[in-house]
């Protein structure tokens, strides 16, 4: 009997150790998150916790994107999945700040995902109606990444109409709305973002600053 138990233990340990702790990336990426409504139904009263798990998946996904060698198609898919996790987190817990900080820090500077970032921030802005930051961030992305002045204007108007808006935001808004000062305002805002974001998420922001520095014309905001 002891022989059976010991050989079982050896087999189990062997099987466990022969598999990587981190699951195969392509599998994790291809499976992606369940749709937001399905997650909300399955989460039941644990919506907050399931939202946290989505954010945790965003961290994992970003870590994979940064560290693993991926093909172009894989990278594109990974960013789309990351965006879906953020959408789900927002849907489940619209008051969770991490969702919006990561949206600004990650999605906003990724090719083709700026509109997703604006959508998430816009939806969050409806719930967190006491804070100026979300519409302001949305306005900045609309201005800097989508080059949509009208949308940027609407979001920034919304931001400065909210309570406790700091003079910095009002000043930046007026700069953004003057075409010749937009470039400078963008740089200032990105510097502000750098101060408020953890170091792990500085790369996309720094890359954007570098790109803006190399494009002195205020109207050159496209990739």
């Amino acid at each position: 009997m002891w022989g059976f138990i010991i050989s079982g233990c050896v087999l189990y340990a062997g099987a466990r150790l022969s598999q990587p702790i981190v699951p195969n990336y392509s599998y994790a990426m291809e499976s992606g998150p369940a749709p937001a409504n399905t997650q909300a139904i399955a989460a039941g009263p644990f919506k907050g916790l399931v939202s946290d798990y989505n954010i945790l998946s965003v961290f994992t996904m970003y870590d994979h994107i940064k560290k693993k060698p991926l093909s172009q198609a894989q990278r594109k898919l990974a960013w789309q999945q990351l965006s879906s996790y953020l959408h789900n987190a927002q849907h489940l817990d619209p008051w969770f700040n991490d969702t919006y900080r990561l949206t600004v820090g990650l999605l906003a500077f990724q090719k083709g995902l700026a509109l997703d970032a604006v959508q998430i921030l816009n939806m969050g802005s409806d719930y967190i109606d006491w804070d100026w930051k979300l519409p302001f961030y949305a306005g900045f992305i609309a201005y800097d990444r989508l080059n949509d002045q009208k949308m940027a204007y609407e979001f920034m108007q919304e931001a400065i109409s909210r309570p406790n808006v700091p003079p910095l935001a009002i000043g930046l808004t007026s700069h953004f709305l003057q075409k010749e000062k937009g470039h400078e305002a963008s740089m200032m805002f990105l510097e502000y973002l750098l101060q408020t974001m953890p170091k792990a998420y500085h790369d996309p922001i720094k890359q954007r600053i570098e790109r803006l520095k190399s494009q002195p014309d205020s109207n050159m905001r496209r990739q």
Partner: protein
Amino acid sequence: MSSIFETMRFTALEIIRMRVFHVLIAGAFLLPIMALIFSNLFLFDIAKVQADVLISGARILASVYILFIAVTLLGKDISQKICHLFLAPPLSRFSYLTGRFLGLLFGLFLLMLVVMLTSEASLLLMFNPDGENGRNALPWYTGLSLAGFTFYQHISLLAAVLLICTWASGLAEMLVFSVAILLISWVVPPIILALQSPDITSQFPTLITTLIETIGMILPRLNGGNIGLALAHGFPLSFSNIAWHLVEHAAYAFVMFGLAQLVFSRRDL
């Protein structure tokens, strides 16, 4: 009255001496540690994540208590005929069932009291008062609120389980029905919420929508109108919302308890 109180006291004594209860109490002590570990994986809203774990943990503990202590105790009492020993005069069936229910409530109260104390202790001790990134965003009474609401919401579920146990015929049947009612009461409110969207409503036949809404009305609303999320973010809850929520659960528990007494008074034991 004295026989109801004595049955309640004895039920509480039985529960306190159960090993499952000790495991649940240990779980209540582990909860803040798990919350701390999990929340440290996050960047900004660390207090919110910790509160999420505490709230979810409290709910899981309360649900496990109902399924594995309340159902087991009542199920063994009825299906293994332990209640025969007690139901000789002078103890009436009404006093017996009332005492059992109150004893089970007391056990749940004790469990939630431990959850409250450990949660409060963790919220007060583990976060730096001058912390940053929303570390100290939760009010001091978050532990009290989450344990209190979890306790209150589960009174109605406990009463529903009491009805199931007085009606079902064996321990397995009682467990299956109780698990089903718990899962359905978790899952149905988000479905009903999703059905409010015109896009989804247009895809569903009216009959199914009505059926789901009817099931939603029959079962207790354990989601509590997103109270969990509000607590996790430290939002103040409106007095009328709290009052109606309390009335909803109290009324539901009364109805279920009354029905359980009716069924039990007529049942062959």
